[in-house]
């Protein structure tokens, strides 16, 4: 069955350091992946996405890496700031569904220490 999970439930980093949040998925049919950030009391917010025909995509201070061979996804945040403290979810879509729904992983709580 399909499942999307994260290796670590919590991550604590020092302000200014780089953060790496990992995600494993099991559905070989997954072909679109998204990282969401959820701050306390808010809904998930889109950060960055990547399609299965790519292995790396960069945004502002964030990079997503996709390794389809081992079904692994990671989010790298450069120069982590206190405002980056949140829960981060990876999510995956499969093109062969009718709805384009996203299946979410368990979430990693990132805490940035000043």
């Amino acid at each position, binding site marked *: 069955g399909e499942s999307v999970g994260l290796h670590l439930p919590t991550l604590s980093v020092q302000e200014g350091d780089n953060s790496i949040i990992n995600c494993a998925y099991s559905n070989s049919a997954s072909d679109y992946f998204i990282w969401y950030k959820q701050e306390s009391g808010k809904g998930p917010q*889109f950060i960055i996405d990547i399609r299965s025909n790519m292995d790396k995509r960069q945004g502002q201070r964030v990079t997503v890496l996709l390794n389809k061979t081992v079904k692994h996804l990671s989010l790298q945040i450069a120069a982590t700031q206190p405002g980056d403290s949140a829960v981060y979810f990876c999510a995956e879509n499969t093109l062969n569904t009718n709805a384009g729904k996203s299946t979410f992983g368990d979430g990693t709580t990132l805490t940035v220490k000043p």
Partner: protein
Amino acid sequence: EPEVTQTPSHQVTQMGQEVILRCVPISNHLYFYWYRQILGQKVEFLVSFYNNEISEKSEIFDDQFSVERPDGSNFTLKIRSTKLEDSAMYFCASSVGRANSPLHFGNGTRLTVT
């Protein structure tokens, strides 16, 4: 920037009562979703909706749940007879496309069933 809005932000109801959660998706989006998140847990898919009908629904979305798009702007989730275990955050989301499109989430309705 356009956003998904949800009302109310918090709903308290007694077990067995009906509740309607309301959402206004982003205006040019075509796909609509409801997700729920039990406190401290991951975001779970409930239902997707396109072209005035349900595209896909999860096992959670049983006969007690229904969705409706009564006019050109609102998207509602109805729970006919609430149970204690329905207590959760309910998030509405919309997307412009079916696949390869990130979801845009509202800030949720916290439903408390007593």
